[in-house]
């Protein structure tokens, strides 16, 4: 085995480095200069902006999204699930919440959150997040109710958080509706488990169920009063209730027939 002359070694090294740098220059030149300049010119974007957007460092590019419209939105909800909000809910003071509930809530919702009046929702078994969302929406006007709206109008953020912690004993505690409800027919159970593609209806369990992928504020339906569930489905269907982001429940409820609403309510109530 004879040795390779140093000049040959250097040649290998130099050409390798040149080839790799060349690849970066060609690829980068096309991606960061040629394409933005050509496409930018065609789209009426000046050269500087087009190149900066290709790097992702100006608004209109992924790292710096364009700010949303400043127009006043129709109040769907003003709850934003930021880390601060979630931590505040976890760090809430249940005893303060209990004192506040004694003044304002227990007359209807009872101390246990287990009201005997079927037109009033049961709070027991709900998550903190579900209760927080609804209280916040009543306060902001996103959801309206002649009893609830004045009761929460003067509450501050901490009070809402503490109340949510008081009633929301089960954190994310949806009980699996697929296990042990009354039999209301194969079609309703199919609706719950599979939805209905023909009507573009997603299955209920895709949000309202154990291990479901729904938003964090999804309420527990199991053991809720059927009268209350049915009333809410009707309110969503008519648009009278509209604090659901992205029309999630409005688009579902408006496609259900009255008898389906009734049977779904019975199914989830467990009675």
């Amino acid at each position: 085995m004879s040795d390779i002359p140093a000049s040959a070694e250097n040649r290998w090294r130099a050409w390798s480095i040149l080839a790799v740098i060349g690849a970066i220059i060609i690829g980068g030149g096309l991606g960061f200069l040629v394409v933005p300049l050509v496409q930018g010119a065609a789209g009426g974007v000046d050269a500087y902006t087009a190149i900066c957007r290709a790097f992702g460092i100006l608004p209109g590019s992924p790292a710096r999204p364009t700010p949303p419209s400043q127009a006043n939105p129709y109040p769907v909800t003003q709850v934003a699930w930021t880390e601060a909000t979630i931590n505040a809910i976890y760090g809430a003071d249940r005893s303060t919440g209990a004192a506040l509930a004694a003044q304002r809530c227990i007359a209807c919702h009872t101390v246990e959150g287990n009201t005997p009046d079927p037109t009033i929702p049961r709070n027991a078994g709900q998550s903190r997040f579900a209760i927080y969302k609804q209280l916040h929406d009543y306060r902001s006007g996103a959801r309206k109710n002649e009893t609830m709206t004045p009761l929460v109008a003067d509450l501050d953020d901490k009070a809402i958080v503490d109340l949510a912690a008081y009633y929301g004993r089960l954190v994310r505690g949806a009980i699996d509706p697929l296990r042990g409800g009354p039999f209301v027919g194969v079609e309703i159970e199919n609706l719950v488990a599979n939805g209905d593609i023909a009507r573009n209806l997603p299955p209920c369990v895709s949000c309202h169920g154990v291990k479901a992928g729904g938003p964090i504020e999804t309420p527990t339906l199991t053991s809720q009063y059927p009268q209350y569930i049915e009333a809410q489905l009707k309110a969503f269907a008519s648009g009278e209730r509209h604090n659901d982001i992205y029309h999630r429940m409005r688009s579902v409820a408006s496609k259900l027939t009255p008898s389906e609403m009734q049977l779904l309510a019975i199914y989830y109530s467990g009675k």
Partner: protein
Amino acid sequence: MVRNRNLVLAHLWLAFAVFALAAILGVWQMWVRSPLHAPYADPENYFRSVTAHGTAMAYVLTTLFVMGYGYFVAESSLERRLPWQGAAWAGYMLAVVGTVMAVVTVLSGNASVLYTFYPPLTGSPFYYIGLVLVVAGSWVWCAVMFVAMAQWKRENPGVAVPLAMFATVANAVMWAWTTVGVAAELLFQVIPAAFGWTETIDVGMSRTLFSWTLHAIVYFWLFPAYIAFYTMAPAAAGGRLYSETMGRLSFILLLLYSLPVGLHHLFMDPEQSTGFKFLQSFLTALVTVPTLLTVFTISASFEIAGRLNGGTGLFGWIAKLPWHRPMVLATGLAFFMLWFGGGGGLINMSYGMNAMVHNTSWVTAHFHLIFGGTVVIMYFAIAYEIWPVLVGRSPDAVNLAYQRRQLWLWAVGMMVMTLPWHWLGLNGQWRRVAHFDYSDPLIAWWGPWVVVSLIGGVMLLASAFLFVWNLLRLHARRVPAEVVPVGMRYAQPLYPILRIPAALNGFGLWNALLLLLMVAAYAWPIAQFIAYPSPGTIVHHLDRAG
């Protein structure tokens, strides 16, 4: 001479046992997707099964196979004792513990997150920790490979490292780079979220970190196939390797251009800008160079063998090749599938066409064809080639006939399964869903084609079992001592390498250039998440009540 047979066999048997079990799940999944009624078919079971199948096939089979084969190559090609044997066994135990942790959590239904994770969905933290342990085991393997080559080079200054070992170390170098992305994602983002230590996760960053790993990991799986093409197939064909330098260049190019290209998995993602997508798409295109170099070199090597065997004319040499040898047959079948799978890959890396196939069955069909087809069939051929050395028994004519049948069954089954699957993807069939409503007239015609894919899947399952059976037969066969193979015979190059530049005999230069490429391709795409932090996405815990 291979001294650490038990180490190699322990890795390979665990890999193939997991493979055979995961193959059953694969068939069941295709059955669930078909219009035929499958048992236990509900979405929860389906996603549990998909996660188990993907984890087993993509992480466990591949990692353990590459490790075991690497130990085999280190001993047989360098013809010296493996260094750090205790560490190698410790790495194996890490992989075993990790595999058990991952499998148990997946089967319990607490980690049905699919093997590519998809945060903010998170499962049981022990699933991810199990995978980290498997990766940690493979890092031990990387270290053993580096040390083995370094020691050999010290003992043989100026001599070319045997091609099989050079390529194996290229893979180890690549793997060390590759795993940085997914390890960062798991350790800093997903595992803290899975434990509930953090409530939100920056999904853009986690997808970007995973993309770092996502393409190169495929080449990690592919390397053994290429090593077999260069160092085993020409010898099995009875010829010589056309050019060893071409082989070294190919492995170096695979190392360089498998890493700074992962953003082509994020073409449809909003968090990355067009410039970086373009740059990485361009670099992806360069990966075709080593692939075509390999197809050319191996075809030329086979031509040499065919002509030595008396083949004449433009194509006459093809018929004269010893197709009855499993390694030759597998190489031919792998190349056949490579044309389809590689062609599909070119479509995936092209921005406009990618938009059409994005999130459709096309993608699933593509990776089954290119990985399950081209790569795994070479795993079989490698096993058939090295098993006699490992167990000290040669196959007889009956064994060889069953080996050929198994390879044919695999290749035909793979084509039958994946071609309709591709076609349905082109027609918009979505992926990652547990069932299709075939009563919908728009998609009713898909049903029969999914059944065809299912038939292909059944063929693959039969082939998988036959493969395990074939290996077991080799353990059981009694043979006279004089025909026991003593070592591995690797292909000799047509022109032996008498002197070699350092650049083609080590990885210092290439590591530096790879660092340059990674900085160009990934520095800002990752740094942007730190420069402009996102509000984060709420973590969804699959293993907790909804």
